[in-house]
């Protein structure tokens, strides 16, 4: 899905560096609020943050053994992410998901779907992809595959730029 940004809108950029569930939730909360406030929102996924938008495939493909192993340990997909604190072998993460459901807070998957509905754009860092042996086929919908200059060009026009 390709989203067309409004060039005149005020803009916000987020760098999602981490694959922690709690950080991803915070990032998408801000992305959804910014989009609802009429802002253009671009999220740059880099390093472990790429896990948030991975499809979670396990096949080796063209990857080196090291890259493949790294991919198996960091399979990604929103549903597999863990809390940065109190994960407790998954018990803490499960408890947090239960609490969020109880209080009718959107899951990460729901927040991501909402973000796309609202036109939030995804950019995947090609340097991190190369290091991890990932290709465009490893990701869900991404608007742009790019590097730091693309991020900085957007960030220099943005009024809110955060590293999460």
């Amino acid at each position: 899905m390709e989203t067309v940004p409004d060039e005149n809108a005020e803009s916000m950029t987020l760098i999602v560096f981490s694959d922690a569930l709690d950080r991803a939730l915070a990032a998408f909360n801000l992305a959804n609020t910014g989009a609802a406030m009429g802002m253009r929102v671009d999220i740059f996924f880099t390093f472990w943050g790429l896990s948030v938008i991975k499809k979670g495939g396990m096949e080796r493909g063209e990857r080196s053994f090291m890259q493949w192993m790294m991919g198996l340990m960091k399979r990604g997909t929103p549903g597999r992410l863990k809390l940065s604190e109190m994960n407790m072998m998954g018990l803490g993460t499960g408890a947090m998901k239960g609490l969020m459901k109880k209080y009718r807070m959107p899951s990460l998957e729901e927040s991501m779907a909402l973000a796309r509905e609202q036109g939030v754009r995804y950019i995947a860092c090609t340097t991190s992809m190369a290091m991890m042996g990932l290709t465009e086929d490893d990701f869900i919908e991404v608007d742009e595959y790019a590097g730091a200059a693309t991020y900085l060009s957007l960030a220099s026009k943005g009024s809110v730029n955060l590293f999460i």
Partner: protein
Amino acid sequence: MEADRTIDCVGLYCPMPIVRTAQAIKEMEPGQVLELLADDPGVRSDMPAWAEKTGNEFLGIEEVGGEIKVYVRKAVS
């Protein structure tokens, strides 16, 4: 206060009341009034901030018990 449309966000937390408001306003006609029902205390501050940012008019808040009613008029221009 008379409203053209009401959305019920009771039991929902940030950012859902704001997102639902933005979606509802998009579907409404300029000058129409939206009523938001909520119980997250954050909306008291978040709704005026949203309205200011988006150019819509924040009309005020009424509170009865734990229920918060927020009124916003869709921008005419």
